[in-house]
């Protein structure tokens, strides 16, 4: 009898676990509380946006807000943006979507139909952007976002949605391109074997696709291990046992920060060492260095959407880094703030180019946009063949023994030469 009750309890527990996750996303303030109210008027361009300022994504949402704030402040400094020869102030109506998909969608609807904003900026995280972009498309309002990377968002044939986050396949592609150059230089074997581990999420699947497609195309890599793992895993020892047995040349994984820390700790403990080790977008985070020790993250290769080191070669990136440091007490920006800033700036540029607040005119300017930008590659454009999602390259970085993480690829952004094979192999 008590076991029947236990089954019920387990079912309840599973439900509780779900609800507890939702509880984490409970807003600290009332959902949708306006950060800066703005009524549209003749001299003001009213732009609406939501961000996850509370809930699971609040940390990142806060970073994006810093980017938006900086962009609006800069635009308004010189009297506003030029719209058809007239200076107009830009006003941001920013609402808190509490990291919830439904809230993000309903607040977008409110911004368009109640607050009557002229244009929309996007929120952060693929699932929220996915939901919100539907509302923008239905209402035919230009929607520029820097928080949705999944290609699925841009494969729906939408006309009004523009994305500044390049797809994750390109992340893998960027790393593979660097590996190609190392193969050509004779630093790693040709052909090389890869142990590929990826988290069982759309992010991980896109990463896997990028690696395997590149391997198929170039025929200079063999994937010896191709395994997925659950997000927030606790024990990777069995998986790493497979990696060890395969004795591959390269270790490529795609993981979120906690999994990167856990896996790399077990990787080091198991005595593993590969000619090149990468955890996708993870590698140089201070938290990981603190958790693992500088020695244990040396020579790890990572690829990210943007890095402050780009300022050394890209004038737009330098301008942004200088502005950010001036506003935020010398703090160095991360890619979140950079993408937030550039998302808002892209919309301002399109409005100026259109010379009016006409939605269709601004949409056309966004679709045809090709302007100098802080993104890697230096040009901002939304190619129609990719559903208006930017296809800027990722910057590949490598952790160096002195604690720095210079950009090692692409060549036009590189601030140092990459090192392969890992000189520590055999020493550890």
């Amino acid at each position: 009898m008590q076991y029947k009750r236990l089954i019920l309890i387990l079912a309840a527990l599973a439900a509780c676990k779900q609800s507890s996750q939702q509880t984490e996303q409970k807003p600290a303030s009332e959902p949708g509380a306006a950060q800066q109210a703005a009524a549209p008027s003749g001299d003001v361009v009213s732009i609406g946006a939501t961000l996850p300022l509370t809930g699971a994504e609040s940390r990142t949402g806060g970073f994006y807000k810093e980017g938006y704030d900086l962009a609006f402040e800069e635009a308004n400094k010189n009297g506003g943006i030029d719209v058809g020869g007239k200076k107009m102030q830009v006003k941001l109506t920013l609402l808190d979507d509490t990291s919830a998909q439904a809230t993000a969608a309903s607040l977008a609807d409110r911004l368009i139909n109640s607050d009557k904003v002229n244009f929309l900026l996007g929120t952060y995280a693929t699932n929220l952007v996915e939901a919100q972009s539907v509302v923008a498309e239905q209402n035919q309002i230009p929607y520029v976002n820097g928080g949705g990377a999944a290609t699925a968002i841009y494969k729906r044939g939408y006309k009004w949605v523009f994305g500044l986050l390049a797809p994750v396949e390109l992340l893998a592609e960027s790393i593979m391109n660097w590996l190609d150059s190392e193969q050509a230089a004779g630093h790693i074997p040709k052909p090389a074997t890869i142990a590929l581990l990826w988290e069982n999420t759309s992010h991980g699947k896109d990463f896997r696709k990028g690696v395997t497609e590149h391997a198929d195309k170039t025929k200079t890599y063999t994937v010896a291990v191709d395994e997925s793992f659950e997000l927030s895993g606790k024990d990777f020892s069995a998986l790493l046992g497979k990696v060890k047995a395969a004795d591959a040349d390269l270790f490529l994984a795609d993981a979120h920060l906690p999994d990167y820390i856990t896996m790399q700790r077990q990787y080091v403990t198991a005595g593993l060492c590969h000619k090149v080790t990468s955890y996708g977008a993870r590698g140089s985070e201070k938290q990981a260095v603190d958790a693992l020790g500088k020695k244990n993250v040396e020579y790890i290769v990572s690829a990210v959407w943007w890095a402050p080191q780009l300022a050394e070669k890209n004038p737009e990136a330098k301008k942004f880094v200088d502005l950010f440091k001036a506003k935020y007490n010398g703090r160095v920006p991360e890619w979140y703030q950079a993408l937030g800033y550039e998302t808002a700036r892209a919309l301002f540029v399109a409005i100026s180019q259109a010379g009016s607040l006409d939605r269709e005119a601004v949409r056309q300017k966004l679709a045809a946009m090709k302007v100098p930008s802080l993104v890697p590659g230096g040009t901002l454009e939304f190619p129609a063949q990719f559903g208006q999602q930017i296809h800027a390259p990722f910057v590949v970085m490598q952790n160096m023994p002195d604690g720095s993480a210079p950009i090692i690829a692409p060549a036009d952004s590189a601030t140092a030469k990459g090192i392969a094979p890992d000189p520590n192999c055999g020493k550890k």
Partner: protein
Amino acid sequence: MQRAVELIINSVLLAGLYATMAYGLGLIYGVLRVVNLAHGGVIMAGAYAGYWLHVEFGIDPYVSLLPVAAVAFFFGVLMYRGLVHRLPRGAAGGVQSLLLLFGVWLILRNVAYLLFTGNDQTLRTSYSTRAVALAGELVSVNRMAVFGVAVLSLAVLHVLLTRTYVGKAIRAVAQNPDSCTLVGIPVERIYSLTFGLGTALAAMAGLLGATLFPFNPSFGSGELLKSFVVVVLGGLGSVAGTGIAALILAAAEVLPTAVPGFPTYLTAAVGFVLLVLVLVLRPGGLFGQRVLG
């Protein structure tokens, strides 16, 4: 052959972790018939306590095991006296205790959010990535230490329950609290003692877990579910069964990875499949339903 040795070592070490997580839950359910949903919260609190002692005072996590367990014991006793004590016991109090203890979990979680934010934290020591060779395999010192604590806890619990007066009283209360009252055993005191013990064991498990993985205020949810699987597999109220069940669960998760083509991400589901099978085929647990010891 070497791969087999490696898989066996991995299974045994993982079992140590699972066992430490499950002892507290099994003990409290075995005696009080209360499903302690706050178990996950206490695991998380134990992790943060060890982290705080390490970061603020530089105390080694294994040294802080005893003080953390002692504080958790008193917290457990307070929780029993202040909250659980007021609920009807057994089937009658099932839903109430579930809700109450879930509430305690949520409070603990939000206190952690308030004090430590939602960011992931890591407890790093000088031996976090150190390994020793064992049967030709490099084995993490930390994992071996966790296994050692698990075995020691099992032995201490076993001795406590079978060789001491208090332990015998706990087992007697688990069997028949009414008769215990008749023979002069202070049932309420035994209940609060058991709740304290279970809470202390959960906090220790959390601290040990923190030496292995990053954690945040949500830490403990997955651990609670694994604990359930272990406790049910072993038979509710069986301490030795809990240890063996932990080994079975760990082996069931680790060994299939040796099968070519087996998708590794399914390992997490193996335990729950086992749970369903046991509940359907052998509802008393693999080792039958014993009453502690």
